[in-house]
Protein backbone atom coordinates (compact mmCIF):
# COMPACT_ATOMS: atom_id res chain seq x y z
CA UNK A 1 0.00 0.00 0.00
CA UNK A 2 1.35 3.49 -0.80
CA UNK A 3 2.59 5.49 2.19
CA UNK A 4 0.17 8.39 1.61
CA UNK A 5 -2.82 6.03 1.51
CA UNK A 6 -1.86 4.70 4.95
CA UNK A 7 -1.27 8.26 6.17
CA UNK A 8 -4.69 9.35 4.87
CA UNK A 9 -6.32 6.42 6.68
CA UNK A 10 -4.48 7.21 9.93
CA UNK A 11 -5.24 10.95 9.59
CA UNK A 12 -8.97 10.25 9.08
CA UNK A 13 -9.17 8.29 12.32
CA UNK A 14 -6.78 10.57 14.21
CA UNK A 15 -9.06 13.56 13.47
CA UNK A 16 -12.06 11.58 14.71
CA UNK A 17 -10.02 10.47 17.73
CA UNK A 18 -9.16 14.07 18.66
CA UNK A 19 -12.84 14.99 18.37
CA UNK A 20 -13.88 11.98 20.51
CA UNK A 21 -11.43 13.12 23.23
CA UNK A 22 -12.87 16.66 23.04
CA UNK A 23 -16.41 15.28 23.39
CA UNK A 24 -15.47 12.96 26.24
CA UNK A 25 -13.80 15.78 28.21
CA UNK A 26 -16.82 18.02 27.65
CA UNK A 27 -19.12 15.21 28.76
CA UNK A 28 -17.09 14.74 31.96
CA UNK A 29 -17.12 18.48 32.65
CA UNK A 30 -20.89 18.62 32.17
CA UNK A 31 -21.34 15.70 34.58
CA UNK A 32 -19.19 17.49 37.19
CA UNK A 33 -21.21 20.71 36.78
CA UNK A 34 -24.51 18.84 37.07
CA UNK A 35 -23.27 17.12 40.25
CA UNK A 36 -22.18 20.47 41.67
CA UNK A 37 -25.59 21.99 40.98
CA UNK A 38 -27.33 19.13 42.80
CA UNK A 39 -25.34 19.81 45.99
Amino acid at each position, binding site marked *: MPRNLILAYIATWAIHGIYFIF*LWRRHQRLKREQEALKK
Partner: protein
Amino acid sequence: MKLALVLFIAVTVALLGYGYYQGMHAAPTEQTMGHIQRIFYYHVPSAWTSFIFFFINFIASIWYLAKRNLKADALALASAEMGVVFCTIVLVTGPLWAKPVWGIWWTWDARLTTTLVLWLIYVSYLILRRFSDSQQTPTLAAALAIFGFLDVPIVYMSIRWWRTQHPQPVIAGGQGSGIDPEMRFALFANWAAFLAMAALITWFRYRLAIGEQQVEEEHRARALRSQLQEVR
Protein backbone atom coordinates in the same frame (compact mmCIF):
# COMPACT_ATOMS: atom_id res chain seq x y z
CA MET B 1 -34.05 3.61 23.62
CA LYS B 2 -30.82 2.07 24.89
CA LEU B 3 -31.35 -1.05 22.78
CA ALA B 4 -31.95 1.11 19.69
CA LEU B 5 -28.72 3.01 20.41
CA VAL B 6 -26.72 -0.19 20.87
CA LEU B 7 -28.17 -1.57 17.63
CA PHE B 8 -27.35 1.66 15.79
CA ILE B 9 -23.76 1.59 17.11
CA ALA B 10 -23.43 -2.06 16.00
CA VAL B 11 -24.78 -1.26 12.52
CA THR B 12 -22.41 1.74 12.25
CA VAL B 13 -19.35 -0.32 13.24
CA ALA B 14 -20.38 -3.05 10.77
CA LEU B 15 -20.83 -0.45 8.01
CA LEU B 16 -17.42 1.09 8.75
CA GLY B 17 -15.79 -2.35 8.56
CA TYR B 18 -17.62 -3.15 5.35
CA GLY B 19 -16.72 0.25 3.89
CA TYR B 20 -13.06 -0.34 4.73
CA TYR B 21 -13.15 -3.74 3.05
CA GLN B 22 -14.86 -2.32 -0.04
CA GLY B 23 -12.56 0.68 -0.35
CA MET B 24 -9.25 -0.98 0.45
CA HIS B 25 -9.73 -4.47 -1.01
CA ALA B 26 -12.87 -5.15 -3.04
CA ALA B 27 -12.90 -2.06 -5.30
CA PRO B 28 -10.77 -2.46 -8.43
CA THR B 29 -7.41 -0.69 -8.57
CA GLU B 30 -7.52 2.43 -10.72
CA GLN B 31 -5.37 2.02 -13.88
CA THR B 32 -3.42 5.31 -13.91
CA MET B 33 -3.05 6.18 -10.24
CA GLY B 34 -2.88 2.70 -8.74
CA HIS B 35 -3.63 2.06 -5.08
CA ILE B 36 -3.24 5.72 -4.03
CA GLN B 37 -6.62 6.37 -5.71
CA ARG B 38 -8.22 4.48 -2.78
CA ILE B 39 -7.97 7.72 -0.76
CA PHE B 40 -11.03 8.59 -2.89
CA TYR B 41 -13.16 6.33 -0.62
CA TYR B 42 -12.37 8.53 2.39
CA HIS B 43 -11.92 11.89 0.72
CA VAL B 44 -15.16 12.10 -1.29
CA PRO B 45 -17.62 10.65 1.29
CA SER B 46 -16.09 12.99 3.90
CA ALA B 47 -16.76 15.97 1.62
CA TRP B 48 -20.36 14.92 1.00
CA THR B 49 -20.92 14.28 4.72
CA SER B 50 -19.57 17.73 5.61
CA PHE B 51 -21.94 19.33 3.05
CA ILE B 52 -24.90 17.51 4.58
CA PHE B 53 -24.00 18.56 8.12
CA PHE B 54 -23.43 22.17 7.06
CA PHE B 55 -26.87 22.02 5.47
CA ILE B 56 -28.37 20.74 8.76
CA ASN B 57 -26.57 23.63 10.50
CA PHE B 58 -28.10 26.04 7.94
CA ILE B 59 -31.65 24.75 8.52
CA ALA B 60 -31.21 24.68 12.31
CA SER B 61 -29.89 28.28 12.21
CA ILE B 62 -32.95 29.47 10.27
CA TRP B 63 -35.15 27.54 12.71
CA TYR B 64 -33.40 29.22 15.64
CA LEU B 65 -33.73 32.72 14.18
CA ALA B 66 -37.41 32.13 13.41
CA LYS B 67 -38.47 30.50 16.69
CA ARG B 68 -35.60 31.19 19.17
CA ASN B 69 -35.73 27.49 19.91
CA LEU B 70 -32.80 26.30 22.06
CA LYS B 71 -33.00 22.79 20.60
CA ALA B 72 -32.40 24.30 17.16
CA ASP B 73 -29.37 26.12 18.54
CA ALA B 74 -28.00 22.88 20.04
CA LEU B 75 -28.54 21.07 16.73
CA ALA B 76 -26.81 23.91 14.84
CA LEU B 77 -23.77 23.66 17.10
CA ALA B 78 -23.60 19.85 16.94
CA SER B 79 -23.93 19.73 13.15
CA ALA B 80 -21.37 22.50 12.61
CA GLU B 81 -18.78 20.61 14.67
CA MET B 82 -19.47 17.44 12.70
CA GLY B 83 -19.19 19.32 9.42
CA VAL B 84 -15.84 20.81 10.48
CA VAL B 85 -14.49 17.38 11.47
CA PHE B 86 -15.31 15.95 8.03
CA CYS B 87 -14.15 19.09 6.20
CA THR B 88 -10.81 18.78 8.06
CA ILE B 89 -10.51 15.20 6.82
CA VAL B 90 -11.12 16.44 3.26
CA LEU B 91 -8.40 19.07 3.60
CA VAL B 92 -5.90 16.56 5.03
CA THR B 93 -6.58 13.61 2.73
CA GLY B 94 -6.72 15.84 -0.38
CA PRO B 95 -3.05 16.95 -0.28
CA LEU B 96 -1.97 13.39 0.67
CA TRP B 97 -3.62 12.25 -2.56
CA ALA B 98 -2.47 15.26 -4.61
CA LYS B 99 1.26 14.96 -3.88
CA PRO B 100 1.89 11.59 -5.59
CA VAL B 101 -0.63 12.27 -8.39
CA TRP B 102 -0.14 15.97 -9.23
CA GLY B 103 3.39 16.33 -7.83
CA ILE B 104 2.24 19.13 -5.48
CA TRP B 105 0.56 19.18 -2.09
CA TRP B 106 -1.65 22.19 -2.79
CA THR B 107 -2.67 24.61 -5.50
CA TRP B 108 -4.92 27.65 -5.27
CA ASP B 109 -7.51 26.39 -7.73
CA ALA B 110 -11.21 27.13 -7.29
CA ARG B 111 -12.20 23.83 -5.61
CA LEU B 112 -9.36 23.76 -3.11
CA THR B 113 -9.57 27.45 -2.25
CA THR B 114 -13.36 27.50 -1.77
CA THR B 115 -13.09 24.37 0.41
CA LEU B 116 -10.45 26.03 2.59
CA VAL B 117 -12.65 29.15 2.85
CA LEU B 118 -15.59 26.91 3.84
CA TRP B 119 -13.50 25.33 6.61
CA LEU B 120 -12.37 28.77 7.82
CA ILE B 121 -15.96 30.06 7.91
CA TYR B 122 -17.15 27.19 10.10
CA VAL B 123 -14.05 27.28 12.32
CA SER B 124 -14.82 31.00 12.85
CA TYR B 125 -18.39 30.01 13.68
CA LEU B 126 -17.17 27.54 16.33
CA ILE B 127 -14.66 30.05 17.75
CA LEU B 128 -17.44 32.63 18.02
CA ARG B 129 -19.61 30.15 19.88
CA ARG B 130 -16.79 29.03 22.14
CA PHE B 131 -15.40 32.39 23.24
CA SER B 132 -18.33 34.80 23.17
CA ASP B 133 -20.16 35.11 26.52
CA SER B 134 -22.95 37.33 25.24
CA GLN B 135 -26.54 36.10 25.26
CA GLN B 136 -26.65 37.27 21.65
CA THR B 137 -24.08 34.63 20.63
CA PRO B 138 -26.60 32.08 19.25
CA THR B 139 -28.23 34.82 17.15
CA LEU B 140 -24.91 36.08 15.76
CA ALA B 141 -23.75 32.51 15.14
CA ALA B 142 -27.00 31.66 13.33
CA ALA B 143 -26.62 34.70 11.06
CA LEU B 144 -22.99 33.77 10.33
CA ALA B 145 -24.04 30.18 9.59
CA ILE B 146 -26.71 31.27 7.10
CA PHE B 147 -24.25 33.46 5.16
CA GLY B 148 -21.48 30.87 5.57
CA PHE B 149 -23.58 28.16 3.98
CA LEU B 150 -23.57 30.12 0.71
CA ASP B 151 -20.06 28.75 0.17
CA VAL B 152 -21.29 25.12 0.07
CA PRO B 153 -22.98 25.35 -3.37
CA ILE B 154 -19.95 27.32 -4.61
CA VAL B 155 -17.62 24.50 -3.48
CA TYR B 156 -19.90 21.90 -5.07
CA MET B 157 -20.22 23.78 -8.37
CA SER B 158 -16.62 25.05 -8.55
CA ILE B 159 -15.40 22.09 -10.64
CA ARG B 160 -18.38 22.55 -12.98
CA TRP B 161 -18.08 26.33 -13.33
CA TRP B 162 -14.31 26.73 -13.59
CA ARG B 163 -11.40 24.77 -15.07
CA THR B 164 -9.55 23.39 -12.09
CA GLN B 165 -6.57 21.20 -11.23
CA HIS B 166 -9.04 19.20 -9.15
CA PRO B 167 -10.66 16.40 -11.24
CA GLN B 168 -14.08 16.89 -12.81
CA PRO B 169 -17.06 15.26 -11.02
CA VAL B 170 -17.45 11.49 -11.42
CA ILE B 171 -20.94 11.41 -9.87
CA ALA B 172 -23.70 13.61 -11.33
CA GLY B 173 -21.15 15.20 -13.65
CA GLY B 174 -23.21 14.95 -16.83
CA GLN B 175 -22.11 13.36 -20.10
CA GLY B 176 -18.69 11.74 -20.14
CA SER B 177 -18.48 11.37 -16.37
CA GLY B 178 -18.93 8.25 -14.28
CA ILE B 179 -16.98 5.47 -12.57
CA ASP B 180 -16.80 1.71 -12.51
CA PRO B 181 -19.93 0.27 -10.76
CA GLU B 182 -17.75 -1.54 -8.18
CA MET B 183 -15.97 1.71 -7.36
CA ARG B 184 -19.31 3.49 -7.09
CA PHE B 185 -20.56 0.79 -4.73
CA ALA B 186 -17.46 1.12 -2.51
CA LEU B 187 -17.90 4.90 -2.52
CA PHE B 188 -21.54 4.70 -1.40
CA ALA B 189 -20.78 1.98 1.16
CA ASN B 190 -18.24 4.31 2.79
CA TRP B 191 -20.60 7.26 2.56
CA ALA B 192 -23.35 5.26 4.30
CA ALA B 193 -20.86 4.33 7.04
CA PHE B 194 -19.67 7.91 7.48
CA LEU B 195 -23.24 9.23 7.57
CA ALA B 196 -24.24 6.69 10.22
CA MET B 197 -21.20 7.54 12.34
CA ALA B 198 -21.75 11.28 11.91
CA ALA B 199 -25.43 10.94 12.89
CA LEU B 200 -24.43 9.02 16.01
CA ILE B 201 -21.80 11.54 17.11
CA THR B 202 -24.08 14.49 16.32
CA TRP B 203 -26.85 12.97 18.42
CA PHE B 204 -24.39 12.59 21.32
CA ARG B 205 -23.11 16.18 20.86
CA TYR B 206 -26.68 17.50 20.62
CA ARG B 207 -27.56 15.94 23.98
CA LEU B 208 -24.38 17.34 25.46
CA ALA B 209 -25.27 20.83 24.18
CA ILE B 210 -28.80 20.53 25.66
CA GLY B 211 -27.25 19.54 29.01
CA GLU B 212 -24.88 22.52 28.86
CA GLN B 213 -27.79 24.88 28.11
CA GLN B 214 -29.67 23.54 31.15
CA VAL B 215 -26.64 24.04 33.43
CA GLU B 216 -26.21 27.58 32.08
CA GLU B 217 -29.91 28.34 32.64
CA GLU B 218 -29.67 27.05 36.21
CA HIS B 219 -26.62 29.25 36.88
CA ARG B 220 -28.46 32.27 35.50
CA ALA B 221 -31.56 31.54 37.58
CA ARG B 222 -29.46 31.18 40.74
CA ALA B 223 -27.60 34.41 40.04
CA LEU B 224 -30.93 36.19 39.56
CA ARG B 225 -32.36 34.75 42.79
CA SER B 226 -29.32 35.85 44.80
CA GLN B 227 -29.54 39.36 43.28
CA LEU B 228 -33.22 39.57 44.25
CA GLN B 229 -32.42 38.48 47.81
CA GLU B 230 -29.73 41.18 48.04
CA VAL B 231 -32.24 43.82 46.89
CA ARG B 232 -34.75 42.70 49.55
